[in-house]
């Protein structure tokens, strides 16, 4: 019998705010232990949390980016449990009235598009960080109270690769939207994986196994690559899987059951009495809508469609947003957008990196690139000379036509002048000339190169080739 996996992901993302969720302590990675803490995030008695407005905005923005409904009534609840990294012994989260519900993410997968539905994206707080020593543990509460968003997917994922691509797409969207820096190294994205298996064709779900606290996307993929066959094996052997929590061990490459206490999941949610409900107004939502950006996938598809770019070029403009925006500024007037893309990606980007400057520092006008392309297309200059002109306009900001004129770089298409150069080239290289006559056609390229060299790159290469061929054959 064939089995299939059913996978759902809960992705936790730290929001890009200056301060924590309920207090003014800095939301900052890497500070010395317990220095970004105050009575509120240490859970001292008698303090009152006050919601960070920007965190609420970023959550609503995420909702819009993930095609969710931003709810008109959200509230916070206490999720009660004991763990040393949780100073209050409860985590403030959104239980039955989350900020956003019911959306989806589209992403590229297996050469096509895949869609994963989003159950909800809600706002909560991060917990502290534990350090384990031989005989005891230490706790740093700098991270406690950092705004954390949980994005819950429907169980629409069917393979480890699909889970991996979904996570990458989600991350790209959140980084694009400015919601989170999503720095994996800094633990800004963590994932809980829910996975079950069932015989193909069966609608009823198998026992849900949760793999907790994954901190890399490749880890999620590897854990699933291990866990799915493990579950299938158990079921095939007639065993029974029970709902449980497992931990992925990256060094051994296996998942193992965690010691779960009998009543570990009785969280006794209750409405947080210290916080008021949140009811976004039309004006507030309109402000959030202004912050919605074009999603990476949509941008890629649009660049491919509107400018007839190959996927690789479009992808470059997705990764490098300012470069893409710059390209768009000139592409709209370009006769040949692909040529403009080549200049922007191959030449401009390299020059920017070399000179360690950014686009706003550019001395020449964006239209300069179009002018340069025109000079090449009309045969006024060769592509080699175009490189030289580009380097010059990059340095001085002068218009390409002006540079060509000033430096006398215009391509020589004067037949008489080229004839002379060809004669010189043949005379200087009797060997290759003889080779060509003997049938080695490749020798022509060498002679053509000589002509270009004698002309300092200004000879029209096509014309030079024609004349050489005529002379040698004649």
């Amino acid at each position: 019998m064939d089995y299939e996996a059913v996978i759902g992901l809960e992705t936790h993302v730290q929001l890009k705010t200056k301060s924590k969720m309920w207090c003014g302590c800095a939301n900052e990675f890497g500070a010395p232990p317990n220095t970004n803490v105050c009575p509120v995030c240490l859970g001292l008695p008698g303090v009152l949390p006050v919601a960070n407005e920007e965190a609420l905005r970023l959550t609503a923005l995420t909702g819009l980016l993930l095609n969710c409904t931003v709810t008109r009534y959200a509230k916070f609840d206490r999720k009660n449990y004991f763990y040393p990294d949780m100073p209050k012994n409860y985590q403030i989260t959104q239980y039955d009235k989350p900020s956003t519900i019911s959306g989806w993410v589209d992403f590229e997968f297996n050469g096509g598009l895949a869609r994963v539905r989003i159950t909800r994206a809600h706002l909560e707080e991060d917990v502290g960080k534990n350090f384990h020593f031989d005989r005891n543990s230490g706790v740093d509460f700098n991270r406690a109270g950092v705004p954390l968003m949980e994005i819950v997917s429907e169980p629409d994922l069917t393979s480890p690769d699909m889970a991996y691509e979904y996570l990458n797409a989600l991350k790209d969207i959140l980084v694009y939207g400015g919601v989170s820096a999503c720095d994996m190294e800094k633990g800004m994205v963590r994932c809980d994986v829910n996975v079950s298996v069932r015989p193909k064709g069966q609608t009823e779900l198998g026992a849900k196994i949760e793999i907790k606290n994954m901190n890399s996307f490749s880890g999620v993929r590897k854990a699933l690559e291990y866990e799915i066959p493990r579950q299938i094996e158990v079921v095939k052997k007639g065993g029974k899987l029970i709902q449980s929590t497992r931990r992925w061990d990256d060094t051994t490459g296996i998942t193992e059951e965690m010691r779960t206490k009998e009543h570990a999941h009785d969280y006794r949610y209750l409405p947080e009495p210290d916080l008021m409900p949140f009811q976004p107004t039309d004006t507030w939502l309109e402000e959030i809508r202004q912050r919605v950006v074009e999603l990476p996938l949509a941008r890629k598809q649009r660049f491919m469609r509107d400018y007839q770019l190959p996927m690789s070029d479009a992808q470059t403009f997705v990764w490098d947003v300012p470069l893409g925006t710059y390209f768009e500024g000139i592409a709209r007037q370009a006769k040949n957008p692909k040529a403009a893309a080549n200049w922007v990606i191959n030449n401009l980007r390299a020059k920017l990196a070399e000179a360690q400057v950014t686009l706003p520092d550019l001395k020449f006008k964006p239209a300069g690139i179009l002018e340069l392309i025109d000079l090449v297309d009309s045969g006024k200059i060769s592509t080699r000379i175009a490189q030289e002109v580009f380097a010059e306009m990059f340095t001085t900001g002068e218009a390409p036509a002006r540079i060509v004129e000033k430096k006398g770089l215009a391509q020589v298409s004067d037949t008489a002048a080229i004839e002379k150069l060809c004669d010189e080239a043949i005379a200087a290289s009797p060997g290759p000339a003889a080779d060509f006559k003997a049938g080695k056609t490749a020798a022509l390229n060498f002679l053509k190169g000589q002509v270009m060299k004698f002309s300092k790159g200004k000879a029209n290469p096509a014309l030079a080739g024609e004349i050489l061929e005529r002379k040698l054959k004649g």
Partner: protein
Amino acid sequence: MTAVEIDVKYVAHLARLSLTPDEEQKIGAQLGNILGYIEKLKEVDVTGVEPTAHAFPLVNVTRTDEVRPSLSNEEALRNAPSTANGLFMVPKIVE
């Protein structure tokens, strides 16, 4: 008032309280009374009354995203029974 059956041991465990059998008896009865009272409240006709999460008619209480001074590490750890290297030290955490 109807006495409501509750698992005192379970509830005590959730709150990390250890109770003597006498206390279990006593507190069990008290909790039963409280739940009995809730049962009584359920008799009230609330047709047409909107559910609410809070007794105050306030919404949208927020703060701007600004960093304000935190406690110093010394102050933060001042009441901790055990500290080392700026951390709160606790018994070894077993996952």
